[in-house]
């Protein structure tokens, strides 16, 4: 019987069998960040365990770094500087590659790893960050782990894993205009639940997926963890190879026969199959406090748990469009890449955000994205429209205590999580595509970007 793409990567990395169907799986790439990197490296040092192969380990500064221009090690998070300096010291001592605060290639881990050509088709890649699944867009088996697992991978070169199930999510048809990879992900989670992918590696397939550019594929895979999947993965193709060609850490000559073999065989069987008609999708926006509480932007809010309605301050039956917002955020490992910024800027060009918006922020996913955007004048479009233009980092995707939106305010955000308090105490977060964020910032209320595009 044929094998899935996941099966092929799993089998190729299986070093030994352990008990009960578990295996030791070789890990090709490991990333750390400053929020948990110091803890993992210090704990290894204390146990007298060296990093087995420092050349395959990378550390980044992204989670709590300051994103204001002219930044250094100081961060707005109380006590945050220690995370940065201790991670730097530990990374240098361990001999691992560090993308430091002021490095010209600094950025969010899942943005810079592809940008640098560190993730490659067919590799296994882990990081103590749940959105590592983003990198499955390259046909890699990439998933988030905890700090202890990161230590394990660094000390041994392998992880102990029970074999997950396989699921294929096929998006048939073509996406309508104004509808994006973010909307595909939110529609999937809204239909099948935030726990819908539990226990599975999800392969995204179908015409609408094949037609996405690499940045759209990353956005789609980014949300696999919000679906409780171990990870998302997409079969690599010519677009993948073209994206990686010439990147600093990518091989000079590609292993074309091997990379081309990284497909799910036609007769491969998946444990579960889901199909979604992409041509019927609309821009999505979350109304509650879980990514599964998301609806089409022209729909009405359904009845959810009372505590969710209370927190979010919206009732069942009311339309989500037209809901007044106080703040807007474009950034995060989901939607902070050049194409995201271009699409948002196209809506904002020559316009200004509504006077009721108290804070509007754009945070490019990497310093390279920032430079590329500036070369096209996108920074000018954003600042003329009333957005702040920042240095790269995770920023207000979450609240680390030093910088946030005004308590209790309602935010439209290109991020991946709308949990209670995720962006700060009492903050009401609505997650959506950069287009929806831009259109809503202009209108001062949650707004359909298709109407702005049409006008």
């Amino acid at each position: 019987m044929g094998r899935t793409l996941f099966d092929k990567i799993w089998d190729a990395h299986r070093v030994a069998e352990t008990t009960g169907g578990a295996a030791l799986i070789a890990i090709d790439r490991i990333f750390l960040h400053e929020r948990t990197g110091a803890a993992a490296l210090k704990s290894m040092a204390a146990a007298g365990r060296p990093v087995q192969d420092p050349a395959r380990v990378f550390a980044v500064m992204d989670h709590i770094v300051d994103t204001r221009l002219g930044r250094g090690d100081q961060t707005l998070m109380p006590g945050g500087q220690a995370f940065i300096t201790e991670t730097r010291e530990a990374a240098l001592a361990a001999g691992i590659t560090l993308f430091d605060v002021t490095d010209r290639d600094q950025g969010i881990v899942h943005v810079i790893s592809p940008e640098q050509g560190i993730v490659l088709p067919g590799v296994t890649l882990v990081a103590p960050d749940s959105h590592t699944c983003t990198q499955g867009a390259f046909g890699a088996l990439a998933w988030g782990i905890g700090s202890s697992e990161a230590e394990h991978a660094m000390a041994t070169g392998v992880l102990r894993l029970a074999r997950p199930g396989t699921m294929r999510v096929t998006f048939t048809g073509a996406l309508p205009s104004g509808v994006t990879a973010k909307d595909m992900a939110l529609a999937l989670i809204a239909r099948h639940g935030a726990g819908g992918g539990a226990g599975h590696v999800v392969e995204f397939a179908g015409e609408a997926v094949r037609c996405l550019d690499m940045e759209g594929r990353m956005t789609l895979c980014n949300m696999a963890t919000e679906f409780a999947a171990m990870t998302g993965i997409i079969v690599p193709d010519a677009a993948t190879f073209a994206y990686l060609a010439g990147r600093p850490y990518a091989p000079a000559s590609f292993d074309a026969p091997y990379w081309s073999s990284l497909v799910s065989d036609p007769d491969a069987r998946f444990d579960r199959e889901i199909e979604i008609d992409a041509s019927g999708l609309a821009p999505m926006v979350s109304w509650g406090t879980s990514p599964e509480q998301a609806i089409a932007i022209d729909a009405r809010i359904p009845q959810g748990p009372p505590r969710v309605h209370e927190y979010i301050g919206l009732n069942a039956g009311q339309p989500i469009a037209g809901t007044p917002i106080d703040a807007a955020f474009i950034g995060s490992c989901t939607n902070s890449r050049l194409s995201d910024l271009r699409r948002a800027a196209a809506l904002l060009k020559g316009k200004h955000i509504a006077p009721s918006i108290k804070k509007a922020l754009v945070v490019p996913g990497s310093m390279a994205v920032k430079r590329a955007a500036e070369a096209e004048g996108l920074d000018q479009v954003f600042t003329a429209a009333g957005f702040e233009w920042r240095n790269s980092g995770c920023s207000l995707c979450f609240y680390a205590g030093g910088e946030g939106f005004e308590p209790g305010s309602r935010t439209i955000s290109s991020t991946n999580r709308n949990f209670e308090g995720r962006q700060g105490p009492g903050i009401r977060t609505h997650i959506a595509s950069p287009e929806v964020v831009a259109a809503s910032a202009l209108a001062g209320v949650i707004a359909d970007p298709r109407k702005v595009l049409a006008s």
Partner: protein
Amino acid sequence: MKPVSTIASPGVPLLIDNIDTDTIIPSREMRSTGRTGLAGGLFAPWRYTDADKRITDPSFVLNQRDAIGTRLLLGGKNFGCGSSREHAVWALAEFGIESIIAPSFAPIFKSNCIRNGLLPVELPEEVVRELQWAMVTIDLAAQTVAAKGKTWHFVIDEEAKAMLLEGLDAIDLTLKHRQAIAAWTETDRAARPWVYLEKRA
């Protein structure tokens, strides 16, 4: 790691689906670079009316008298979703929680539990509901949960079970396979030389 065998405790219900690790321990409560000092921030958004001043909210279940000293939390579906922060498990363990029973767990959280000697037990929603405030005994070796004169069986990976029962350090366990790992690497280096990066200056 301390071995886990049996746990006896009242089941304190927090029967909400999709409880995320931001709620279990918010980013702003991760104040030092180590693994300790986190229990005070556990469930900070729900446990306190004012988290900065640590003013407790008497309506939150863990603040109720019957919950004091509990070792067992009952949760909803997809427990521990969201951020991979292991601090969520460290905070729960430091607070005294030894097991969580829920209909399902988010995968990274579940793995973090096992690495830290906190037993995740999956049982159907109706069973979890029945365990509310009951005196519950969990026997890992037998893979059973007993309460109110009834017994339920639960499923756990063999490997996870062995590690929890024996309090094994996963790294030590894996390092026993050192030779197999080295042999695999040598073969793989020949097959996929492009994977192997050299340390740059």
